[in-house]
């Protein structure tokens, strides 16, 4: 049994008229896997992630975690947001501590844990800074530390590098991969939503490709490039995957044939 099973999810929003956003989405995520979901903007990939996080409820279908349906946000699955979602009135350390406090961790233990992750993301010197004093990259590091501090089994990332500049994003990508690789961490399953195909291919074990709205899964591609991936940044195979996915997304006519061939 897979760690996470997404079964037949359909979701629509009513905004003056009904808009179908996701249609019959099904896939599994396995333990220790780095899964990326790509698609053009507006294809519902963020909605999909929010459903997995339990923040949004699907119209039909369900998400099974350890075989049990997710009905509300759980501590075992946490999320990193595109726009960080930090509380501006809490310092770096307080932002990380708050979820721990809410979930009943004692003063000592939450301080220790928050400190551990602040160090982990390299923000020790900024622990008492308020978010406005941080750069985008730093803010996202706080977001990641906050998500990891709860020790979830699955980490969800919603376009985590999209609001960062290119260089910062590159550094942070490698850091995230290091965190994922670090087996001393309890969090080993990462699911990331992105619109950057290069990013998805570079980071993930497997890439799910979503069609334009309504989002359906049009491909499920295993990325067969050894790790650490840094060595293969200019590798031909990597570009081949990227081109393949690009074609899949842009080329509507070839779409169905490709789906047949790949799956």
């Amino acid at each position: 049994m897979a760690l996470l099973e997404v079964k037949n999810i359909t979701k629509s929003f009513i905004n003056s008229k009904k808009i179908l956003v996701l249609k019959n989405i099904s896939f599994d995520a396995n333990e220790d896997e780095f899964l990326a979901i790509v698609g053009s903007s507006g294809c519902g990939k963020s909605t999909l992630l929010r459903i997995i996080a339990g923040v949004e409820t699907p119209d039909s279908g369900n998400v099974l975690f350890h075989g049990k349906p997710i009905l509300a946000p759980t501590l075992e699955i946490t999320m990193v947001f595109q726009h960080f979602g930090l509380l501006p009135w809490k310092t770096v350390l307080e932002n990380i501590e708050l979820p721990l406090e809410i979930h009943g961790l004692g003063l000592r233990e939450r301080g220790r844990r928050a400190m551990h992750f602040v160090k982990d993301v390299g923000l020790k010197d900024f622990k008492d800074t308020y978010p406005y004093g941080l750069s985008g990259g730093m803010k996202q590091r706080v977001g990641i530390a906050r998500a990891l501090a709860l020790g979830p089994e699955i980490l969800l990332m919603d376009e985590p590098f999209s609001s960062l500049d290119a260089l910062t994003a590159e550094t942070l990508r490698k850091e995230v991969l290091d965190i994922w690789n670090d087996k001393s961490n309890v969090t080993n399953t990462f699911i990331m939503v992105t619109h950057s195909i290069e990013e998805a291919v570079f980071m993930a074990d497997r890439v799910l490709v979503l069609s334009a709205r309504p989002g359906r899964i049009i491909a499920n591609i295993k990325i067969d490039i050894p790790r650490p991936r840094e060595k293969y940044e200019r590798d031909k195979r990597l570009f081949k995957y990227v081109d393949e996915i690009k074609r899949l997304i842009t080329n509507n006519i070839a779409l169905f044939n490709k789906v047949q061939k790949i799956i």
Partner: protein
Amino acid sequence: MKNSMKRYLIGFIAGIVILIISYASVMTFVKNPEIVNLPYYTFRSLFRITIAYVLSLAFGLSFGILASTNKKFSAIITPTFDIFQSIPILGYFPAAIMIIIAVIPGMIGLELASIFLLFTSMVWAIFFGVVGAAKSIPINILDAAKSYGIKGFQFIRHVMIPAIMPAIIAGSFLAWCDGWFFMIAAEYITYAGQVQSLPGLGSFLAKSAFLYNDTTSSITVLVLVTFLVLFINYMTWHRLTEKVSGYAPLIKMGFFGIPVNKKFKKRRLSLQFKFRHNIFPKSIMKVYSINQRIISFIVVIAIFILAIFFIMRKIPTIEVIKKSLFVPEIVNLPMYVLFTLSRLTIAYLIALVIAIFMGILAAEKKKFAMIFYPLYDIGQAVPILALFPILFIYFSQTLGGRLGLEVTAITMLVLDMIWYIFLNITVAVKNMPKETKEVSKIYGFKGIERIRHIILPAILPAIVTGSILAWGTGWNTVIFSEYMSSGKEVLSIPGLGSFLDKQGYQEGNTILLIFLLFIISSIVILMEKFVWRKLLKKTEKYELEA
């Protein structure tokens, strides 16, 4: 941090010392039979405003949080409060006095009525401030809170309260200023044709001007009151804003708008700018569904019927309603509406032109900012209604009674309206995207061209916001200043306000009063629909990002 504390303490002590010296010298040199009571009057006014503020805070905060956490509750309560907010307070004050006096007669009743007036003038700023701020909590923060399981009381404590704290303080500051604004109306009350005064600074100002014809002491005390208001503002609301903004950059300024520190020179924006901007976002006009409108109107009408019932002790028959409505003067109603509207329009246009010039100059030229910001601070602190006796005595002596009152009314309206527009315009010019400003530089837009093509379109939404606020406060001022009841004589100029005051204060005609309020509310709503909303729609097409 330590430095700011030191500055605060020095300011505090210096202010107290100045206050004591000024009080002492005013009490020695000003010849007025009641001047010895000045400290007592100050205490009474402060006490009254403070009680009203505490009540408004409790009410506004609890209902505000309830309305923003409970959708069903909000669907009824928010539009209902919005209707109440749109009715000029001074319009229903006569009815409120009658009800309260009917229940608790005597001075205590009057005191309660004045606290009620102050309360209604304060509470909406806090309530709508809270609701607005709660609504504008960024979605990513709400998502984060949700996904980390922060809910219920924890949500209110860790997310809601800190998020709305700036709005609570800003709303409180506004409410507090409104309290001072209405002080004189709340202390110098006409009831059943007689002037009743409650001990306080407002009644002192009115009495020394009207009864003792002593404008010198009136002006002196008004200056003193203005300083007192400024001092309290700086010591409380401004300080609190600084504290609460510890987690976000704050535009700092020194006393009277002059920067203390060179570092802040670039960011010289008055604190109030921040305040007002926060709670009066561009979307000042709320949108409700038809059902909501209907329900809220029913609730409001029910409350008014209850009020009539309370005064009359019985449900009025059709006969009584007919008799109350068809007073001989009612034929003049269209003319009254026209007069009052022209008064408001003239004052508004004067205020608008001055405010646009001042606003643009203050935002663009440092030299002017050095003059206008302190002027704004002081202009805001002057309780405008308290200017009435002084202005009236002055203008009636030079121009004669009626014309004097007319000029007084318009002058007060201009002084009252100007700051709302000025403030919004300055903030808008300051907030203009840098790129837009640079475009005008690169392509050589200068002078009038620049104002016409770059600045005016950019500040139009701000003008609309400022105008709505200006008209809102203008209605109260016009109701107050079309009718003068000094205790010695009664003088009025034809208009909706004086008609309302006469019917309310002299005749006690509650039914007609409510009818007139209904007319005023309709005018407010119609103007919103056909003027402001249209203008805002226009601007939405090219909305600039701040």
